[in-house]
C-alpha cells in the first residue's frame, strides 16, 4: 500500500515538475509517463496469480504470451502518439501534411496485425483443445451446487455415478438419486462438507446445479465452468501439489453468492484413503432411515441385469 | 448515376480525388431510389421480421424436446386466417381505387378493412377463450406458451396497424379535402403493412400447424 501510494505520489510530483519546467511538452511527457508507469507497475506489482496447483500451467503460458504481444503493441502505439504530440505541436506557421491515405502502409499494418492475432490464437486453441478433451483415465466426481453451498458425489467402488433426477429431491434424498439405478447405491455422498481429491489423479468434475447458475472455481487450478440447472457440464484437471484450496462460486447466484465458498484438499494416497473410509454411501444413508426395502428392490434389479 | 452504383463502388470512392469531386458535386443526397415513407416502413418491417424470427428460432429449438405437446387448432383459427386474407384482398382493391383517384371507394374499402381487423382481433380473443375453457393454459406446455405469445404479438402488430389505418382513413375522409399524392402514398404504405402482417401470420400459423 505504502509503496503504491509512494509510487503514485512520485509520478504526481514528476508530472508537476514537468508541467512547470516544460509547459509546452507536458502533455506528451505525461502520456509517456502513463506508459512507463504502467510498465513499472507490471514489473513490480505485488498482485500476481497464485501458484498453479494443477496441470493447467500452460494456460498461464498463453496469458504470458498474450501479455508480451499485446503489451508491445500498446506501448508502441502510445509512445508513438506521445512522440507525435511532442514533435508536431501547433505552430501557426507550419502546415501539416496533406495525405489522405497510403495503401501500402495500411496493408502492411493489416498483415502484421493479422499475424499477431494468429500468434495469439493458434496456441490458445491448442490448449483449449486439451482443455475440452477429457482423458480416459480421469476419475468422475460430481459437484452439485445449490444456493449457497456445495455438495459432492463420488462414484464409489463400481466407478459409476448412479443416475439422478432433480424431481426426486426431497429431505430424505437431497441428491435426487434414482432409486431404480443400482449403480447409485455405493455412491459416496458429501453434503456441504470438504472435498478431498487424490494428487496426480486426473479428475473429471461433472457439474450440476439444482436451482440457479453457479460456477465451481479454484483459483489455483485455473479451470472453471458454469453449472446450469438441467444440464451436466464438466471440466477436467490433474492436481499436482497437495494443499488446502478455497472454492469460489464464480457465477452470480443471488444474495449469498459471495459467501458460497468451500474447500478442496489435495491429499497423498494414504490420507485420501483414510478420508474416503470415513464417508458414507447412499446405501448407508437409506439404511439409516429405514428404507432397506428400497435397497433390496434396487439390488434385485442389479441381480436381474 | 447514383442508381447504378453498387455498394462496393460506393464505398471505394475517393472523396478527395478531384475527378470524383466533380461527380459528387451533382449528387442529390439520396442513397436509394425510394420514398422516405416506404423506406421507413421497410425499416419497421425488418425490425419486426427479426423480432418474429428470433421467436421462431427459439421455438424450433424448444420443439424437439420430448415434453412438447401439440395444441389443437380450433376451426375458428382457420376462419380468422380467412378474414386476414379477405382484408388483404380488400386492400389490393383499395390500392387500385386510389391509383384511379376514386377516393370514395377507397374510404369505403378502408372501413370494411377496419371492420375486418376488429373482427379478426375479436376472433383471436374467442380462440383464446375457447382454448382456456378446454384447459390449454399458457404455462401448461411450451407449445401453449408459444401459441399465446405468437397470437398476442401478432395482434399487437395489428393494433399498431390500426393506428396507421386511422391516419390513412383520415386522409380520405372528407372528400373535398384530399391531398391526392399524399393520400395515395399513405394508402399504399398501409396496404404493404397489411400484406406483411398477413405474411407473418401465415408463417406463424403454418409453423404451429406443421410442427
Amino acid at each position, binding site marked *: 500500500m505504502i509503496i503504491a501510494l509512494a509510487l503514485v505520489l512520485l509520478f504526481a510530483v514528476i508530472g508537476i515538475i514537468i508541467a512547470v519546467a516544460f509547459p509546452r511538452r507536458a502533455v506528451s511527457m505525461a502520456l509517456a509517463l502513463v506508459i512507463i508507469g504502467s510498465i513499472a507497475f507490471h514489473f513490480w506489482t505485488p498482485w500476481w496469480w497464485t501458484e498453479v496447483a494443477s496441470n493447467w500451467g500452460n494456460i498461464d503460458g498463453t496469458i504470458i504470451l498474450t501479455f508480451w504481444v499485446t503489451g508491445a503493441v500498446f506501448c508502441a502505439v502510445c509512445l508513438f502518439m506521445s512522440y507525435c504530440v511532442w514533435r508536431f505541436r*501547433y505552430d501557426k506557421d507550419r502546415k501539416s501534411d496533406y495525405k*489522405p491515405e497510403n495503401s501500402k502502409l495500411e496493408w502492411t499494418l493489416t498483415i502484421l496485425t493479422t499475424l499477431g492475432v494468429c500468434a495469439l490464437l493458434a496456441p490458445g486453441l491448442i490448449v483449449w483443445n486439451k482443455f475440452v478433451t477429457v482423458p480416459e483415465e480421469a476419475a468422475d466426481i460430481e459437484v452439485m451446487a445449490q444456493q449457497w453451498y456445495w455438495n459432492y458425489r463420488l462414484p464409489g467402488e463400481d466407478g459409476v455415478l448412479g443416475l439422478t433426477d432433480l424431481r426426486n429431491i426431497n429431505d430424505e434424498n437431497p441428491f435426487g438419486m434414482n432409486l431404480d439405478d443400482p449403480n447409485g447405491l455405493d455412491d459416496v455422498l458429501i453434503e456441504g462438507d470438504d472435498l478431498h481429491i487424490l494428487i496426480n489423479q486426473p479428475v473429471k468434475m461433472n457439474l450440476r446445479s439444482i436451482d440457479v447458475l453457479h460456477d465451481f472455481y479454484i483459483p489455483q487450478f485455473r479451470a472453471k465452468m458454469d453449472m446450469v440447472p438441467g444440464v451436466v457440464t464438466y471440466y477436467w484437471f490433474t492436481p499436482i501439489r497437495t494443499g488446502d484450496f478455497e472454492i469460489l462460486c464464480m457465477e*452470480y447466484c443471488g444474495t449469498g453468492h459471495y459467501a458460497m465458498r468451500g474447500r478442496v484438499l489435495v491429499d497423498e494416497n494414504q490420507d485420501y484413503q483414510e478420508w474416503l473410509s470415513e464417508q458414507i454411501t447412499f446405501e448407508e444413508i437409506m439404511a439409516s432411515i429405514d428404507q432397506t426395502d428400497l435397497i433390496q428392490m434396487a439390488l434385485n434389479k442389479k441381480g436381474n441385469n | 448515376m447514383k442508381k447504378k452504383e453498387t455498394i462496393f463502388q460506393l464505398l471505394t470512392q475517393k472523396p478527395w480525388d478531384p475527378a470524383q469531386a466533380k461527380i459528387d458535386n451533382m449528387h442529390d443526397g439520396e442513397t436509394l431510389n425510394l420514398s422516405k415513407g416506404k423506406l421507413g416502413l421497410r425499416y419497421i418491417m425488418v425490425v419486426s421480421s427479426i423480432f418474429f424470427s428470433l421467436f421462431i428460432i427459439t421455438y424450433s429449438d424448444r420443439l424437439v424436446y420430448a415434453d412438447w405437446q401439440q395444441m389443437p387448432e380450433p376451426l375458428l383459427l382457420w376462419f380468422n386466417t380467412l378474414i386476414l386474407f379477405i382484408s388483404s384482398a380488400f386492400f389490393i382493391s383499395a390500392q387500385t381505387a386510389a391509383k384511379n383517384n376514386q377516393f370514395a371507394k377507397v374510404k369505403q374499402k378502408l372501413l370494411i378493412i377496419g371492420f375486418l381487423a376488429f373482427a379478426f382481433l375479436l376472433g383471436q380473443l374467442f380462440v383464446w377463450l375457447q382454448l382456456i375453457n378446454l384447459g390449454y393454459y399458457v404455462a401448461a406446455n411450451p407449445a401453449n406458451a408459444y401459441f399465446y405469445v405468437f397470437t398476442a404479438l401478432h395482434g399487437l402488430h395489428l393494433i399498431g396497424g390500426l393506428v396507421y389505418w386511422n391516419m390513412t382513413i383520415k386522409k380520405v375522409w372528407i372528400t373535398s379535402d384530399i391531398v391526392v399524392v399524399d393520400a395515395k402514398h399513405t394508402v399504399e404504405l398501409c396496404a404493404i403493412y397489411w400484406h406483411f402482417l398477413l405474411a407473418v401470420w401465415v408463417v406463424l400459423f403454418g409453423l404451429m400447424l406443421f410442427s
Partner: protein
Amino acid sequence: MAADSYEDIAVDKGEVIPALEVPPQDLYHAKSFWTRWIFCQDAKIIGIQYSITAISIGLVALVLSWLMRLQLGFPQLVPFLGAAEYYQFVTMHGMIMVIYLLTALFLGGFGNYLIPLMVGARDMVFPYVNMVSYWVYLLAVLVLVASFFVPGGPTGAGWTLYPPQAITSGTPGGDGLGIVLMLISLSIFVVGFTMGGLNYVITVLQARTRGMTLMRLPLTVWGIFTATVLALFAFPALIVSCIMMTLDNLLGTSFFMPALVEFGEQSEYSGGSPILFQHLFWFFGHPEVYIVALPAFGIVSDLISIHARKNIFGYRMMVWAIVIIGALSFIVWAHHMYVAGMNPWFGYFFATTTLIIAVPTALKVYNWVITLWKANINLTIPMLFALAFIVTFVNGGITGLFLGNVIVDVPLSDTYFVVAHFHMVMGIAPVLVVFGAIYHWFPLITGRFLHEGMGKIHFWISFLGSYAIYFPMHYLGFVGVPRRYFEMYDSEYMAVSTNYLNQFITIVALIVGFTQILFLYNIITSAKFGKKAGKNPWKACSLEWRTPEVPAGHGNFGKELPVVYRWAYDFNVPGAKEDFIPQDIAPDQIPEAKAEAT
C-alpha cells in the same frame, strides 16, 4: 485572410449548382412555448432533451458506483448497505450506464443534434416520431426509477439478468416487482429507440443535401449511422428475451426456466433453457458494445482530425472498418459464454471470429495515431480527451484479446480482470469521448466556450484517475478476485495487500467522481457566462458549423440548404491559404488560391 472570410463567401453562394429545397410542409413549425421547448419536434431540442435525461440518470448510476466502491474498499462503512442492496446497486449501475446513459446519449443525444446538421438537412425526416421517441425513452427511465421505490427494491440480478436467478427468490427483487419493472422498462426503451433509429437511418440515407455523398460524410455520422443499424438488428433480441422472461415470471411459462428446486421446494417450471437466454441476451449484448463504441470511434476521428489540423488518415479504411466491425459484431456474441456451459466446440469458432474483429479495430487505432504524424496538433481540451481515449481504448482493447481467446478467458472470466476490461473499453474510453465531444460542440449549442482552466483540471483528474482505477484492477483479476462479491477480505489465497489496492481504487474513484461535479458546474456557468465563441471557433470543415446562426436556428440552414463540394477533412490543403476549407466552399471560392488541388 481571416477565418470569417469563409462566412462572407457563404452569404452569396455561387450559383454553380442549385441547392436542394425541402417542401415547406415537411418542416415542423413550433407554435407555442409547449411545442417549442417541451413537446418539441426539432431534432436539436430533442437531442438536448435526450442528453439531459441521460446525464441525469447517469449521475444516479455514478452515485451508486460510489456506494459500491465504498463497500469494496471499506467494508461495512455504509450502514444501510447490505449484500442485497449491494447487488441491487451493481445491477442498476451497469444497466443505467450501458443502456440508459451511453446508448441514449450517443444516439439520442449526439445523433439527434448532429445528424441533421452534419448531413445538411433541415431536420430529421419524421420529426413527430422523433419526438415520441424521446417521450417513450423518458417513460422507460421513469419506470426504471420507479423500481427503486417498490417493495423489495430494484432487481439485483446483475445487468445480464441471467435466469433462473433473475426471477427466483434468492435474488434481491427477484420475486417482487423489481425485475418486472426492469424488463418492462427495457422493452419500452427498445420501442422508443426503434422510433429514434428509424429517423437516424433514413435521414442519413435519404435526406442529405446536394453534393453530400456517403463518402463525404464526417466519420461521426458514419459511426452513429452504423451503430443505429446494429441496434436495428440487435435490440429485437433484447425485447424478445424480456418478453419471454416476463412471461416466465408472471404467467409461469418455462421459456428459460428449467425444473429446479428452490430452497428445498420443487418449482412448477420445467424444460426451459437458461443458456438460450444467454444466447439471446448476448446476441443483443455484444453488438450493444459496438453501439456504444462506434459513435465514439466516429466522434474521436473528427476530434483528432480537426484539432490536429490534418485530414483523417485513411478515411476509406476508417469507413470500411466501421462497417466490418459492425457486421462482425453479430458473430462473436458467444465469447461472453465460453465458460457458460455451452458446447465446447463453439469455443473454437467464437474465439476465431472475436480475434478477427481485432484487426479492423487495430487499424482504426493505427489510423488515429498516424493522423497525428506530421500534423499540427492543437492541444485543446477536446484533443486532450481524444488522446486519452486512444490510451484507454488501446488498453481496454488489448485486454479484450485476453478475454476473447477462449483458453485465456477460462481463468480470467468473472474476475476483476473482466470488470477492469469492460470499464476501460466501454466505460472510460467512450465517456472520455463524450467529454471531448461536449467540450468540442458546446460552442455550437450555446455559442460559448466551456471554461478552459476547469476543463484542464477535469481532464487530468478524469483521465489519470480512471486509468489509476482500472489499470491496477486487472491485476486483481490475475490474483483471482471474483467480481460481484459483496465482500471477500477473508480469503486466504489473496494477499492482504489486495485490500489496500481496493482502498486505493475506492479513494481515487471518489475523487474522479466528485470531479464530475466541477464539470457540471462548468457546463451550467459557461452556458451563461462563458467566453463567446463566435462562428466555427475550431475552424472545422463540416456543415454543422456552417449555419447562418449559431446556435442553428429553426430549419438549421437559413433560406437555402448548403451545397457540398468536398469531404469533411480538407485541412491544410496544398495551395489554399487558410488551413481549412469548409465543405460548402466551391473550388473557385477558396481565398487566394484557385483550385489547384481540392
